[in-house]
């Protein structure tokens, strides 16, 4: 699907620009986009280096393991195929808390760290596991308690109640997150359902069957 979206965005742009005579602007935009990509990545270096250093200290001290074992049933429910007490769960917890508190530049390194831990459990390093998809779903809809940037902008433009959108934002973000979790569950179940030809002996441990059976749904997903 990403392949198609990418191809479509560029093809439509060029064809459309050819008709409206905006080809030069589109070319310029392409190179500006490339520049933005590099700038944003470079901007991430400092945060990633710093937080990954701090988080390593936490890992060496056993803090993340402790956090992972203290986990709420909710996280166990969301990530059933991650072994109990695995550091990935600790990073997922810190990522979620940072998101909720609106600490964007701390949330990203922790989320990436969680992904790297999940990657260690991944038998096929190029294909996303269900746990990775769930973590991504939680981050794209990211529950935020206080949208600080927006409150600041509203203040700038002289709002009488800059923070009045906190409640509506929280409600909307909660609904979006629930939708993401439900959709993720639905796709995960569908991906786990073994193809009709699967042998009976393999269905003792559902998580393993799912890994083995993940190829057909994955091929499906990229094609649509």
């Amino acid at each position: 699907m990403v392949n198609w979206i990418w191809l479509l965005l560029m093809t439509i742009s060029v064809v459309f620009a050819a008709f409206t005579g905006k080809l030069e602007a589109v070319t310029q935009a392409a190179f500006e986009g490339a520049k933005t990509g590099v700038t944003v990545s470079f901007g991430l270096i400092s945060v990633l280096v710093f937080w990954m250093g701090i988080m390593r200290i936490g890992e060496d001290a056993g803090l993340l393991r402790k956090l992972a074992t203290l986990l709420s049933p909710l996280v166990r429910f969301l990530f059933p195929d991650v072994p109990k007490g695995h550091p990935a769960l600790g990073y997922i917890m810190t990522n979620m808390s940072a998101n909720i508190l609106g600490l964007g530049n701390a949330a990203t390194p922790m989320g990436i760290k969680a992904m790297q831990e999940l990657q260690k459990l991944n038998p096929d390093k190029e294909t996303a596991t269900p746990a990775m998809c769930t973590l991504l779903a939680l981050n794209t809809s990211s529950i935020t308690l206080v949208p600080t940037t927006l409150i600041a902008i509203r203040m700038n433009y002289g709002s009488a109640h800059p923070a009045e959108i906190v409640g509506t934002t929280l409600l909307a973000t909660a609904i979006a997150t629930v939708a993401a979790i439900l959709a993720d569950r639905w796709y995960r179940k569908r991906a786990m359902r073994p193809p009709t030809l699967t042998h009976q002996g393999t269905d003792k441990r559902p998580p393993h069957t799912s890994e083995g059976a993940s190829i057909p749904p994955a091929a499906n997903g990229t094609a649509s």
Partner: protein
Amino acid sequence: MYDLITTLSIWLIPALIVFIPLYAAFRKVPVYESFVDGAKGGFDTAIAIIPHLVGMMVAINMFRASGAMELMVQALQPLMAGIGIPSEVLPLGMLRPLTGAGSLAYTTHLIENYGPDSMIGRIASTIQGSTDTTLYVLTVYFGAIGIRRTRYALKVGLFSDVVGFVAAVFICLYIFG
């Protein structure tokens, strides 16, 4: 409530920066060496993201500059108006999953033109604050670990964006209406 959360947000990072190394030192971890060891990985991770992010940013920037997005918005507007969604916020709904900076700029533009306390201004603020940039999150998180086949992740993200957008509009219409 709001004050409590802001205070918490302000305190949390400095508290973490002090608490984690202190706790580790107490557990006899060589804190500085441990920090440097972990920090090394940050650079490689950021570099690994570059090709993914460049690819996405190029496509999105081209799409915006070509004017194709405007046309898409215009085509969708009658449909949106039919179910009661103000047409002014529709471009924002389409920009939001694609580009964080772009949608923030558009939100600011709406707030500037309609006022922060207008219905449009409130809806725009709610949309902007309630979801993250799906394509960016996907690119960065999966790019960092070299995932090529993203399976259903993008569909789930975009679905939740649509739900979040519609929810934001109707919640605002109901609460501020």
